[in-house]
């Protein structure tokens, strides 16, 4: 409970009167001060009683635009709050969105009409979740005000915090702003015309090698300038980790083996190249991208955070790549042209029609575009894809194809449990023979 300015002044008067009564031993001052204090206390009790009546009448019903939302995307929320107003109490309702969300637009504060019996107030707004997971609304905040007092009450019971918002993870599809410079990136790649290229010039400092002085520029500006060279370097491999779906059983031993393999490869790569990029996917969902991380401790901490079965908002089931479908159609056409047996030709024709039908109906999945945008930020020559190979693996084809298009050598590693009495399946195989192709 807070005293409003008027009540604060009255309380000061009470204190003055009572202290004056005590100092002067004057009953008249004590009477005046005590009656005023009784009046203020009585008003407070009346206010408290009215606040309780209003709070007990509050009903909140909240509906979401979607049940599940991806992190970073907006969500429409509609709240209907019913309460019984009291004549002299002004109530301000404030909707409290879940924590770690950003209010995009709309109003979360409602000014109610005092004394209205059982009126319903509607509040519509849009939020953007900033983290993934299950987020619960924080409830509603009611601010009661009358002439003398104000009180804020936060209703956060289950009825006021429902429903739970399920936020799915989203991939990072944009390069950080620090690495972008007016739409270009300095990749420090050497020119193909020479093995050594000049990266930049700077002023001479004592101790610099005089052989690196750019005499022409130095003569022009009458200052010693040193050339900074860049040499051809190889880029660290991109490690892609295909996490299993948390909604289905998965081979835990194989997953543990995959974790140790990924960790080992990350450590080796960091020692060799000083930085590494790791992309976490779970089926056709991009979970997280660690981009050119240089700190081994931070990198391992990120691995620990993200290497676990993940939720999949999108699932593929035998989703063929459109390029593969086109090549199959071409193959059927070629084979049909060469076939002499009419039955074989008819069969190939039927197959071609089926493939054409699938190609016509099937659109390019969003996942392929997301992968392309994510990979476009990275400079790489090699990529390693770690997967358990359980469930549908057609998404792997959608990862491998854009990499191969960029002349990146891709190695798919299907991690399996070692089984006694059975020869171990060949782990590593080229993407050309592709999983799910």
């Amino acid at each position: 409970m807070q005293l409003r300015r008027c009540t604060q002044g009255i309380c000061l008067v009470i204190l003055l009167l009572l202290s004056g009564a005590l100092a002067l031993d004057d009953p008249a001052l004590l009477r005046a001060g005590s009656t005023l204090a009784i009046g203020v206390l009585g008003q407070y009790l009346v206010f408290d009683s009215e606040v309780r009546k209003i709070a007990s009448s509050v009903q909140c019903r909240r509906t979401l635009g979607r049940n599940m939302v991806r992190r970073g995307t907006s969500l429409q929320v509609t709240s209907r709050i019913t309460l019984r107003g009291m004549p002299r109490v002004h109530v301000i309702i404030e909707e409290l969105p879940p924590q770690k969300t950003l209010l995009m637009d709309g109003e979360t504060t409602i000014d109610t009409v005092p004394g209205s019996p059982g009126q319903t107030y509607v509040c519509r707004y849009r939020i953007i979740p900033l983290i993934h997971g299950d987020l619960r609304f924080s409830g509603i905040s009611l601010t009661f005000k009358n002439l003398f007092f104000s009180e804020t009450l936060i209703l956060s019971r289950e009825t006021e915090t429902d429903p739970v918002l399920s936020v799915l993870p989203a991939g990072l599809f944009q390069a950080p702003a620090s690495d972008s410079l007016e739409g270009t990136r300095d990749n420090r790649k050497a020119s193909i015309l020479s093995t050594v290229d000049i990266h930049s010039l700077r002023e001479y400092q004592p101790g610099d090698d005089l052989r690196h002085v750019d005499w022409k520029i130095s003569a022009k500006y009458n200052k010693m300038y040193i050339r900074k060279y860049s040499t051809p370097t190889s880029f660290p491999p991109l490690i892609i980790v295909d996490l299993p779906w948390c909604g289905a059983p998965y081979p835990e031993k194989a997953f543990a083996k995959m974790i140790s393999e990924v960790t080992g490869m990350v450590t080796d790569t960091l020692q060799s190249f000083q930085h590494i990029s790791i992309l976490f996917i779970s089926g056709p969902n991009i979970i997280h991208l660690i981009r050119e991380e240089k700190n081994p401790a931070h990198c391992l901490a990120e691995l620990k955070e993200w290497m676990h079965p993940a939720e999949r908002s999108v699932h593929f089931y035998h989703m063929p790549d459109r390029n593969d479908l086109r090549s199959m159609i071409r193959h059927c056409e070629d084979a049909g042209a060469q076939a002499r047996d009419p039955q074989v030709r008819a069969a190939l024709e039927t197959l071609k029609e089926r493939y054409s039908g699938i190609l016509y109906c099937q659109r390019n999945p969003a996942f392929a575009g997301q992968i392309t945008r994510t990979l476009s930020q990275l400079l790489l020559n090699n990529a390693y894809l770690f997967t358990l190979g359980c469930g549908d693996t057609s998404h792997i084809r959608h990862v491998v194809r854009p990499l191969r298009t960029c002349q990146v050598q891709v190695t798919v590693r299907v991690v399996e449990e070692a089984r006694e009495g059975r020869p171990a399946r060949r782990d590593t195989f080229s993407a050309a023979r592709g999983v799910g192709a």
Partner: protein
Amino acid sequence: MNTFPPEFRFLVPLAAGIIAITAYVRPETWYLAPALLLAFLGIYAVSRSWPDRGFYLVCSGMLLTTAAGTMNLWAGLFTVWMVGGTICSSHGILKETQDFHSFLCFCGITTAVALLIEFSNHVVIPLSILAAGFVMVLVVQSVRVYQFKKHYSGGAS
């Protein structure tokens, strides 16, 4: 049709009462209470559009109450009731039956307190009793508010 504002129900008896009591008691400083009454009426008339009007009315009303209380116990009590009624009516918090019940309750308690002060020789004892009563009420109220907020926060206080 009644065109007078509701606070006139208290303001007119207050003015009449103060004048009558002053005339009846005839104190040495007979001009004090009527002067403070005029000040109260003036502030009442001037402060209609002021923010925190209640504070100004209370300040001027308490001066009048103290002045009337020095004349007579019942004069002081009467002034308290009328000033209280005027302030409540002018703020629109004395309209319904429930409000009048609360006001009557206030009058009863102030009477009891005034009698307690009157029958005590000094200020210290009634002030201590009143302070203890206030502290008790506030402690009980703070516990109630804690439980109330705990209930509405879903058990997590």
